């Protein structure tokens, strides 16, 4: 028996990459769930090709799934993978530049034939020409071994070849000392129902992959990542889109309202619709409209009728919704607008992440039209932010924009499932008293009464024309118009009075304050922590509320010599901070469709420290 060594690692990042038909997303998801069950903290990032059916074997068709698992807190899917499983030459070509020097490379040699090498643009075979010498390369005939292991199942050749991702998964399980239990159960419970034969074959391939690791001479080491110190509770792995959907469901429950989602499919927001459309019987009505405008307009109708109204979209769709957002603002009706940002402008990079819709969210409407804007910082945080968006919308009678992004939407992390009974209710008050009813009177927050159809004596008209203060009748008079613009602005400004104190992570004053928002949270936090560990006087503030900004932000900014604002855009929040607080905030800006790396944030902070 061959001697095998086990090494303990604090954390490891693994990337599975292959053709979009190779089942890499499924492989990644299975590995993630097994890892979570083993008690590691983790974060994942799937990377799909933009085209659904890019030609097989081409660079454009490569699909990847990265996960970072650790015995410590995990903030991101990891900068550079330690392990890359490449199922074909194209996957190697696309992903090799990210692999850590000395990293582990598992290659499916069967796919490294002349045709595929040429498709991927290789002049010679990298498995043989020595160009991979800087890595620990494990060439394995994954396809051949898979076919051999399932020969007796009797699948046709095409279906049989498709089982190779389970062989790779089994091998990865061996390498990281994971049990096969979870995946075996999944095959038995889920896959077997759809296709018993395929389930049987995949089960064999999985076990063969695992056995191969155990017996093959090339594998001398396996690795153990000890359990992380994780707060007690019930967990599940959740993507940002699912968390947004769950947060909206929770808001429905916490408010006691029925929910209406009016939306039009668009990447990467569509999954929110997919999730919510499953829960009609819990009080959610989902409406797949004819376009984004009808999506938001139907939601406005539902809000007017007394529902928790939601519309979901991504950048180009948000542009279409601008006019209707202002109708909601003008008739002062609650509405949650979720914008899952993607690369822009125009159709841009539909499957890639970006943070470039902040200015559109803040200002992309005609007239004086302030709308509260909040942004989620992690997949799980989408849940809390969706509730927060609904709370602000309902208590201040206003449309609210919730910004997430493609990275959060598709990325996942373990999420502690809350008990709804522990969460504060969202107070809803429908007006019913006809005596003295004034449609545009205001409460202490500046919110007008929600007076819904069906309530006797409250018949009244609303609309997009300027409203007379209190009565809500159409009014063209200039003085009233200015008053109403100021009242609407003031209502939004007052939301800041309810916000908790801003959390400053690191030093409370000092040299460099890093201010971020949205999905860059993990990379910024990890990057700043690195610099903090080196003893520098830096801190990190991550903004959830982008309009109104927290009342205490100005004072915090002024306590630091330099303010650095990393964003996946060309400088949007930095522009707002400069204008609002008259400080010399500088941006660190990249927009290449990818999330920040922890290391590049750390380098940017160090560079900023030099300028102090």
């Amino acid at each position, binding site marked *: 028996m061959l001697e095998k060594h086990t090494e303990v690692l604090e954390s490891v990042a693994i990337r599975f990459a292959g053709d979009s038909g190779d089942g890499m997303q499924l492989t990644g998801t299975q590995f993630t769930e097994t890892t979570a069950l083993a008690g590691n903290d983790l974060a994942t990032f799937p990377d799909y090709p933009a085209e659904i059916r890019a030609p097989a074997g081409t660079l454009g068709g490569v699909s990847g799934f990265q996960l970072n698992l650790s015995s410590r807190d995990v903030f991101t899917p990891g900068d550079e993978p330690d392990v890359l499983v490449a199922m074909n030459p194209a996957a190697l070509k696309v992903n090799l530049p990210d692999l850590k020097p000395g990293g582990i490379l598992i290659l499916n040699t069967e796919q490294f034939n002349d045709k595929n090498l040429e498709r991927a643009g290789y002049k010679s075979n990298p498995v043989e020409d020595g160009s991979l010498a800087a890595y620990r390369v494990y060439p394995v005939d994954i396809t051949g071994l898979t076919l051999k292991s399932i020969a007796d199942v009797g699948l046709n050749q095409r279906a049989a070849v498709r089982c190779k991702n389970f062989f790779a998964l089994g091998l990865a399980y061996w390498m990281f000392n994971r049990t096969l239990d979870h995946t075996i159960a999944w095959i038995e419970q889920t896959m077997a129902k759809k296709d018993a034969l395929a389930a049987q074959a995949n089960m064999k391939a999985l076990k063969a992959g695992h056995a191969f690791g155990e017996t093959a001479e090339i594998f001398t080491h396996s690795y153990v990542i000890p359990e992380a110190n994780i707060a007690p509770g019930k967990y599940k792995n959740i993507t940002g889109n699912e968390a947004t959907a769950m947060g909206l469901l929770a808001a429905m429950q916490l408010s006691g309202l029925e929910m209406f989602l009016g939306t039009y499919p668009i990447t990467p927001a569509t999954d929110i619709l997919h999730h919510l459309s499953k829960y*009609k019987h819990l009080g959610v*009505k989902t409406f797949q409209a004819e376009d984004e*405008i009808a999506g938001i307009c139907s939601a406005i109708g539902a809000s007017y009728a007394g529902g928790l109204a939601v519309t979901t979209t991504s950048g180009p769709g948000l542009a279409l919704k601008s006019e209707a957002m202002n109708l909601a603002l003008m008739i002062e009706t609650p509405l949650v607008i979720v914008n899952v940002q993607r690369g822009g402008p125009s159709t841009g990079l539909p499957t890639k992440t970006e943070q470039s819709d902040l200015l559109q969210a803040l200002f992309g409407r005609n007239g004086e039209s302030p709308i509260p804007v909040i942004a989620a910082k992690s997949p799980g945080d989408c849940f809390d932010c969706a509730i927060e968006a609904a709370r602000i919308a309902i208590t201040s009678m206003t449309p609210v924009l919730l910004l997430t992004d493609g990275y959060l939407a598709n990325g996942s992390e373990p999420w502690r499932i809350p008990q709804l009974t522990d969460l504060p209710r969202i107070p809803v008050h*429908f007006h019913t008293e006809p005596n003295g009813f004034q449609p545009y009177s205001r409460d202490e927050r500046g919110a007008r009464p929600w007076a819904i159809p*069906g309530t006797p004596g409250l018949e009244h008209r609303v609309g997009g024309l300027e409203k007379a203060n209190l009565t809500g009748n159409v009014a063209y008079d200039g003085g009233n118009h200015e008053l109403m613009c100021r009242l609407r602005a003031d209502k939004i400004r007052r939301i800041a009075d309810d916000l908790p104190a801003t959390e400053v992570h690191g030093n409370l004053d000092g040299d460099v304050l890093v201010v971020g928002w949205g999905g860059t949270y993990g990379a910024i936090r990890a990057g700043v922590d690195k610099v903090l560990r080196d003893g520098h006087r830096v801190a990190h503030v991550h903004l959830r509320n982008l309009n109104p900004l927290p009342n205490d932000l100005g004072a915090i900014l002024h306590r630091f010599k330099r303010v650095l604002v990393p964003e996946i855009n060309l400088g949007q929040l930095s522009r707002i901070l400069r204008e609002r607080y008259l400080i010399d905030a500088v941006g660190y800006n990249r927009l290449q469709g990818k999330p920040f790396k922890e290391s590049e944030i750390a380098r940017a902070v160090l560079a900023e420290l030099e300028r102090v």
Partner: protein
Amino acid sequence: MTASVYPHVQPTDPALLTKKDFQTDQDPRWCPGCGDYSILAQVQRILPELGIPKEQIVFISGIGCSSRFPYYMNTFGMHSIHGRAPAIASGVKTLRPGLSVWVVTGDGDALAIGGNHFIHALRRNMDLKILMFNNRIYGLTKGQYSPTSEQGKKTKSSPAGAPDYPFNPISVALSAEATFVARAADIDAKGLPAVLERAAKHKGSAFIEIYQNCPIFNDGAHDYLTDRKTKADHELRLEHGKPLRFGPKLEKGVALDARMQPVVVDVAEYGEDRLLVHDEQNDSLAYFLSRLVHPAFPTPVGVFRCVERPSYDQLVEEQIDTARGRKVQSVQQALEAGETWTIT
């Protein structure tokens, strides 16, 4: 789910309603002589007769002279944005199927900027009553040609005549699968209330094209049909099960010739039993009738099509009922669905 946040109210008694209850204190801002006044009066006249509590009626409009309508109706109402009323109304109706939801729109509002929402609301059999005031012009923006203006129409935006071919709104509505399609003229004190009532009682998407006079920018566009002197020669009143006859003494009729083309015939000569007989449930006939266009043919008024099929809100409620047996029975269970693990 806790439905308790919704107001617990007793519906008012619709039997006590009169036309006056539907009037507001806002003075209409339409030009003197505008056809919109007579439409408003007819709607206010029929609403008390429908047996619907006033607070359960909602009027949603877009933008245009016609879309000012909700301000003058003492019901719940929204004067929304240009072209979007059918989408907004769809949200109201889907969330609250119990409400009676009406859309008021213009030929520009419904067929130009709002064309998409218009056809999709109809195709879904959304239970909306859509009243389209067709003055064949953009009134509010002071007289540009609209999607229903005749080709060659000279306006401020088409001094050489509009090159566009117009829409035939009834054909559009039929092709868009509306389950109730009708036409009436603004000052037709018999025909208009009749189709309004039929539309109100129809469960599903109801579309009424109302020929409306704009004395300022397109005066007399429908005179041939509304003027007492010429009306009888041009008006073909559709009655279910009755032969298609018109004329001052109903001496003329509509039939199909050997090439399946419509022809106007002399009833006495041709024989009444050879005329086409109206059937509101016949799709092809409805479309055929929509193609009878002035001046070559009489203009049909009344109900072109009225068929029954489940409305959108009914189908949604059915799906909700079917889903009740699902495994996940509460939001908490939804949160906990899927693969979970417990850390102790």
